[in-house]
């Protein structure tokens, strides 16, 4: 058995070439944020801002929701970068974006349940879902491209984080264009599809990211 490992070492040394170090910089994070915001602005310019935007922008909830979605996007991108490079120090970093997303989801469910007279009209939500997915594609694709160059250990988790960052931009875009603020609509047509897309990240990562 010793001979086999020695043989492998010889093969690996023979295969050695000078390597270009893969490091993620602030500029990579900016690239994805710019791409995400570009998609949001593109969606807004095609679909138009929601009719009640003037009323919404002065409400605390709207501002907080927007900031949380931006924070979620940044945290997910940073966590995906961190998990793409092997390290014992950053292996739990994924907890932050997942915590924020869970918090947003729980708050949405709670606000739905707390509504004394829930408005049970679902509305036309497919446009929200398709808009959210369309906005998600570019930032998620760039992130997949960057992460593939590294050495991903937790593929499933990285896939989840990549789509979570894309979905954050998608939800931001939908928030700016969809005027339906009923808790049921937001839950069924905004957050549940985003959850499905995020879980789809596991499948996608297994196909797009190589195992080391």
């Amino acid at each position, binding site marked *: 058995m010793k001979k086999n*490992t020695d043989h492998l070492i010889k093969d690996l*040394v023979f295969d*050695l070439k000078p390597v270009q170090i*893969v*490091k993620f910089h602030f500029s990579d994070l900016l690239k994805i944020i710019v791409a995400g915001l570009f998609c949001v602005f593109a969606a807004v310019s095609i679909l138009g801002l929601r009719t009640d935007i003037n009323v919404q922008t002065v409400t605390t909830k709207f501002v907080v929701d927007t900031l949380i979605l931006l924070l979620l996007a940044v945290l997910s991108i940073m966590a995906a970068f961190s998990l793409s490079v*092997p390290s014992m120090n950053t292996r739990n970093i994924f907890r932050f974006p997942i915590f924020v997303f869970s918090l947003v989801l729980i708050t949405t469910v709670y606000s739905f349940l707390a509504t004394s007279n829930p408005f049970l009209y679902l509305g036309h939500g497919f446009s929200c879902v398709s808009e959210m997915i369309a906005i998600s594609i570019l930032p998620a694709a760039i992130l997949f491209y960057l992460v593939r160059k590294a*050495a991903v250990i937790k593929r499933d988790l990285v896939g989840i984080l990549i789509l979570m960052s894309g979905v954050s931009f998608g939800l931001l875009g939908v928030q700016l264009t969809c005027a339906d603020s009923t808790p049921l609509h937001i839950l069924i047509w905004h957050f549940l599809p985003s959850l499905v897309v995020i879980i789809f990240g596991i499948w996608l990562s297994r196909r797009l990211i190589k195992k080391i």
Partner: protein
Amino acid sequence: MVFKQLAKKSQDGDGAAYTNLLQGLNSFLKNYLRKRIFIQNEIDEVIQEILLAVHKSLHTYDTEKSFMSWFLAISEYKVIDYIRNLKKHSASVDLNSISHFFSAINTDSDLKIDIEKAINSLATKEKNVITLIKIDGHSINEVAHQLNLTEANVKVIAHRAYLNIKTYLGTQT
């Protein structure tokens, strides 16, 4: 020389430093894995998987950061992967029950035809591995060298092939 410096030189393409690094890691891993893997024969296989992963990930090591943090993350991942594979295969495949199909090839002509069909239905990689091991009688080590794969890979492919053959024969009966 410490691992960190050896890794830095290896990234620049220094073969001697890389040999020292891999040999050092090999020695380190033997002690490290002895506490985690109780099947002694398997330790060398896991070490090889880890060294291969180190080779594939060398470009991600940031020399300003701790080498051991980087290296242990890879090792931990490979050990977990190994344990997961072991559990999966021990739960789903009874190697002895599968092997009797192959020993029966020479005695039962109907079974021989079925097994030949089952082998032909496999993916090329699986077909090559099974043919080399079970028909031509090569060892796993020889097959690994011949197909340019690691021994662990050959075993995994063989396991998958056994499962597919089992499923194929199950649907034929």
